[in-house]
Structure formats: structure tokens, C-alpha cells
């Protein structure tokens, strides 16, 4: 089937991963939160000399900052997830999905030689899968029950 074959043959770069948001490891959590809120994304990559050293997500914000009672001026290096699982743009989509499911991640950084080039999210992958059967998903009525309870019009 098309989809099964595409998952193996097509690469992560085909998904056009979104541009990553980068912060320095010494910058405070508040900066990252502001950046995530402005750009409406769920994660930022923590870098040191253009190399990814960690990832900071909404979940880290809840678990490692708020619930531990840390202040928002804590350096991000103290509450990030260090050494995240990454993918290369030339990796197949199915291998990216496997890595995501194995660790239960929502976001994977896309890197070339440790240099960040993108972020791949679970929503992007679901969108990619949906694109394979557009008529099943997009050609739908707004409400599942098509029968109106009463007659329309005057």
C-alpha cells in the first residue's frame, strides 16, 4: 500500500520540519516561556555553540519548574531534558515515528552533526498521514449525524 511504502521511502525532510527556536543554556526559563508563547510552539532547543545540548518542552515547564517550585529566572540548563533523541533529515519517516513512540515524545529535534535544523512534532506526522486519505478526512460534514432533527427553512 502507498502509505506503508511512503513511510519507509520518504525522509524526514519531506515533512518540512518547522524552524527550531533556540535558546542559550545560561538563559532564564522566562525567556524560553516568552518565546514559546509568542511563536505558539511547545518546545525550544537549548544550544551551546550551535550544538543541541537539550530540549525544553511544556512538560518540562510543568514538571521541572512549576511543580518543583523553581523560579522563572532559573537557568534553563537546570530544568531541560538533556541529550534528547534526535533524527537526521535523511532518516525515514517510519524511523522517526518509531523513535517518537519508543520514548513517548511529542517533539524530535532534527539535527545535522548536532546542529539544529528543525523540529518534528507528532501533530505534523498525523497531518502527513491524513494527507494520504484526504477524502476520508476532509470531505466530511461538520456534524457526524447528517439527519436534521427538524425541517430546515420557514
Amino acid at each position, binding site marked *: 500500500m502507498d502509505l506503508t511504502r511512503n513511510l519507509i521511502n520518504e525522509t524526514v525532510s519531506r515533512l518540512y520540519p518547522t524552524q527550531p527556536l533556540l535558546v542559550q543554556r545560561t538563559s532564564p526559563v522566562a525567556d524560553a*516561556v516568552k518565546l514559546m508563547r509568542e511563536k505558539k510552539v511547545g518546545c525550544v532547543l537549548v544550544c551551546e555553540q550551535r550544538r543541541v545540548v537539550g530540549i525544553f518542552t511544556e512538560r518540562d*515547564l510543568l514538571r521541572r519548574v512549576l511543580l518543583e517550585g523553581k523560579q522563572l529566572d532559573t537557568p534553563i540548563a537546570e530544568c531541560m531534558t538533556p541529550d534528547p533523541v534526535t533524527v537526521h533529515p535523511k532518516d525515514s519517516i517510519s524511523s522517526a515515528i518509531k523513535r517518537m513512540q519508543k520514548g513517548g515524545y511529542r517533539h524530535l529535534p532534527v539535527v545535522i552533526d548536532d546542529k539544529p535544523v528543525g523540529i518534528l512534532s507528532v501533530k505534523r506526522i*498525523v497531518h502527513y498521514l491524513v494527507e494520504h486519505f484526504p*477524502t*476520508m478526512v476532509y470531505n*466530511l460534514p461538520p456534524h*457526524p449525524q447528517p439527519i436534521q432533527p427538524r425541517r430546515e427553512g420557514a
Partner: protein
Amino acid sequence: MICPSCGHKNLPGDDVCRHCKQPLTAFDLPQPENPVEQSLMFDQVKTLKQNAPVTIGQAATIGDAMEMMQSTNVGAILVVDDAGRLVGIFSERDLLKRVVGNVADFQKLPITQFMTPRPECVATTDTLNFVLQKMDAGGYRHVPVLENGKPVSIISARDMLRFLTRLCREA
């Protein structure tokens, strides 16, 4: 559209043939071409794994909600009224978007002030393509499943991904 029974040429979108009155709506429905499409069109939400939803009362505070998200290891909790009906959803994204860095001392504030009210939901009898439609078009990570207005399950984007990849492997 040309009527398959009498060959009359109808206007596109007609429900019945103007010549022989045969219904034409069935020909507009997409035909499933592979097992994945078949499953999306005909399998109902209840065939997915039921994740018991984590619910919290309307009177709860942000602090309570955060504790609950921590102890149950979920990213979104459902806010219900006294009768158990869904009134809103509070997720990690709401926390980021509306709470942290925006308001000081938020632990004691009521959850109803920051939740997303009236989220998009599905019923247990809806088919899976409706879940995907809501998730993909609306950009939601969690879609609650309701039965008579009460939450019975919640479907996350990762659940859908798991379901679809399993189907692909079997196909």
C-alpha cells in the same frame, strides 16, 4: 451527475435523479480503497483503547490541576460540573499560554478562569475519520470522547499515531 439507472444528466449535487427519482447521494460517498481507509470510515471511536479521562471539578485551582497532571502523568485534564458534564479542558498548552509568566501567584486561582471552555468533542459512536478531522483541522492534541455529555475517554494525537501505524503495519 449522470444517473446510473436511467442515464439522465442531472445538475451536480442533486440528491435524487430528476427523471427517475432514484437517490443519488450514495454515489457522492468516498469508497474506501485500502484497509486503513476502510477502518477510518467504519470503525467507531469505541474501538480505540479507552483511556479513562482525568477529570477535575469546577471549583478546583490551578495548583490542584497541576498536582493532578503530575500524579496521573497526563498532558490535559477535563473540567466537569457537579453533574459530571464536560465544561472545559485544561492542558499544558493552556498553562503555557495563559498562566506562566502572565499572572503572579497563580496556584490559588480557579481553573475555570484559564481552561479552554467547550472543547471540540466526539461521541463514542462517531467514526475515526471525524476524530482525525477535528484533530488535524483544529490543531488539537487531545479530543475528549463524550457519552450523554459526560466524558468517558480522551484521544491524544499520539494514540491516533499509534493506531494508524499499527494499521499500516498490518496492511
